[in-house]
């Protein structure tokens, strides 16, 4: 970071360069991570907790500004953003000129604390670190007697590393650059929910039962969930018919474990689990689809392929001639490229992993989960998070039809997984 006497500023990481250009009311690039408490949230204490935690996280204490050639972050000297009661659908647009110019918002409703982050700041890893510290601080304020032994400080396992790990792990391409060609994929379309609503269907399940189901097929939980999602699209959307184009599920991969990084900035890569159903007499079984998508993921989640993805993405940013193009022209070009690729993927499913809280705090928190906002061509997305032996998957969608979600959960229950559902009540009731 370039630290001036008065104002610090920083460049955007490689992935973040895209988000300010494509973000709009309809494609917000905002994700939500939330924690459900055992008791109603106290707004005043939550605000105080945010006031105390935010100064430690410089990655979140930034505002976004436009330069002549690039967007950049500038230290935000304004007061902490106001904690408000939830007032919009999950993943609503974060306006750069409101919310004290912060690129995240903290809201609450009932027992739930929501952290919504514009992806330009950080990915799910950074989001969960921040939310955990916010929850810790909030609980220390809310239950001072029960947590009397806990000090008001950030957990010792938190790293404040802000390196651009893409640049650090970029290797100059040798020989011809690998090209990533993508073709059109199945797009989930249909009647949309009224009034621009975003529907949420949340399913919770026991991890031990899920592991038992995965064991039957010899796959990991992640591979199982991606396979079940692709199968649900095949069965619920394509009605078990063949297709000329594949079902393509984007799966973000956290790159930190592969490159020994602890950065708080974005550091992930997208791989795609593809399944192209052929026209044939017999319908595909779940086991068949799972095997195809698992193979597709295994081929892509290798160190070599992840190296290639980083090299491909960073080499464009490193091109000096491209860097000299004014931002206004870059914006037009990036938007065009992004629009052209809007039909190249069907959906996204992300797993931010298992959230672990320190022992004294656990009794006060019931659950952790996350939600993704919609993007161009993707009208439904899935997001997974685990806490305390329970895995929660949230399907956010702007479509009124719930056939895909139905097939997904039915596949799980048929495999002996107990599922408990809740929605945000935008779906029609009898």
């Amino acid at each position, binding site marked *: 970071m370039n630290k001036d006497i008065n104002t610090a500023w920083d460049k955007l990481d490689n992935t973040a360069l895209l988000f300010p250009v494509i973000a709009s009311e309809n494609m917000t690039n905002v994700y939500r991570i939330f924690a459900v408490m055992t008791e109603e949230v106290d707004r005043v204490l939550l605000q105080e907790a945010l006031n105390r935690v935010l100064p430690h996280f410089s990655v979140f204490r930034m505002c976004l500004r436009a330069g002549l050639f690039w967007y950049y972050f500038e230290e935000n000297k304004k007061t902490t953003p106001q904690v408000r009661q939830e007032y919009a*659908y999950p993943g609503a647009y974060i306006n750069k*000129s409101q919310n004290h110019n912060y690129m995240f918002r903290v809201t609450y409703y009932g027992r739930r604390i929501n952290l919504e982050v514009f992806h330009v700041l950080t990915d799910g890893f950074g989001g969960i670190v921040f939310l955990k510290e916010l929850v810790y601080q909030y609980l220390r304020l809310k239950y001072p007697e029960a947590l009397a032994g806990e000090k008001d400080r950030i957990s010792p396992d938190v790293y404040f590393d802000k390196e651009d790990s893409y640049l650090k792990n970029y290797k100059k391409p040798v020989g011809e650059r690998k090209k990533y060609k993508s073709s059109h994929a199945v797009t989930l379309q249909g009647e949309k929910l009224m009034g621009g609503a975003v529907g949420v269907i949340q399913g919770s399940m026991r991890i031990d039962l899920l592991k038992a189901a995965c064991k039957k097929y010899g796959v990991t939980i992640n591979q199982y969930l991606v396979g079940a999602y692709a199968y649900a699209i095949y069965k619920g959307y394509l009605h078990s018919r063949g297709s000329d184009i594949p079902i393509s599920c984007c799966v973000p991969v956290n790159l930190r474990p592969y490159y020994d990084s602890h950065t708080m900035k974005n550091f992930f890569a997208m791989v795609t689990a593809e399944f192209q159903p052929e026209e044939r007499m017999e319908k595909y079984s779940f086991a068949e689809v799972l095997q195809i998508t698992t193979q597709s993921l295994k081929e892509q989640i290798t160190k070599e392929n992840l190296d290639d993805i980083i090299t491909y993405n960073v080499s464009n940013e490193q091109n000096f001639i491209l860097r000299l193009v004014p931002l206004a022209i870059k914006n037009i070009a990036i938007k065009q490229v992004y629009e052209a690729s809007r039909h190249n993927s069907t959906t996204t499913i992300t797993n931010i992993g298992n959230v672990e809280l320190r022992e004294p705090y656990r009794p006060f928190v*019931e*659950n952790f989960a996350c939600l993704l906002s919609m993007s161009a061509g993707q009208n439904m997305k899935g997001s997974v998070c685990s806490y305390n032996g329970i895995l929660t998957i949230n399907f956010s969608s702007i479509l009124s039809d719930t056939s895909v979600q139905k097939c997904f959960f039915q596949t799980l*229950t048929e495999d002996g997984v107990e599922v*408990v*559902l*809740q*929605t945000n009540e935008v779906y029609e*009731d009898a």
Partner: protein
Amino acid sequence: MNYCSNCKVTILDERNSCPLCHKMLEEMEPKRADEITTRYGNRASYPNIRTRERRIRFFMSLMLFCFLLGEVAAVIINYIFTPAMYWSAIVGIALLYTYLFVVYWIRHDAGAAFKVGLQIFFTMGLLLLIDYVTGNHGWAIEWAIPGLILLGDGMVFFFMMLNRQNWYSYLALLLLMAVCSVVIILLYMTHHIQNLILPVICVAVSGVYLAATILFGDRQFKRELKRRFHV
């Protein structure tokens, strides 16, 4: 707590039908419901967002309706009482401008400096248009636009004082005002403007203001340029 026997899932919402298959739900036994609550927790409710969205949309529609009504009334009054002059066209342009102005400020995501800069730019266009509609007397370019530049300078000063910590973020707007002042003087020199007083005042105010900012801003000014122009 309810159960869908078709999907074989428990539903925490208080609803009659399954959100997945739309089958009527069965009420769960209290003992089983307690087990589920112990293991998975209670439902975490969501607010009713639709009402808020409807309110915003209603406000925008009401404003548009009132403006349309106002313009229709202006056209009728214009036709009946002063048919020789089409002043209702000016009312129409002004109403349309106000509506777009409100939509822009509510919907568009940009900082105040950018919004003010763009607003000044469009207001200049509007003034030129009204001048043209009313007989092209040249009052817009001679008086109104230089006045607007001075107003812009005043707004930059106001913003800088209001947000002293980040005063440098309004430099781009100040530079825009300086460029506009130079253009006005050039228009005088090329005899498109007859009156020298306002263009000179514009250049003097913008120039002195910019020079003072560079001089007193010193390192902050240079750093702002470094940030804005980093490659």
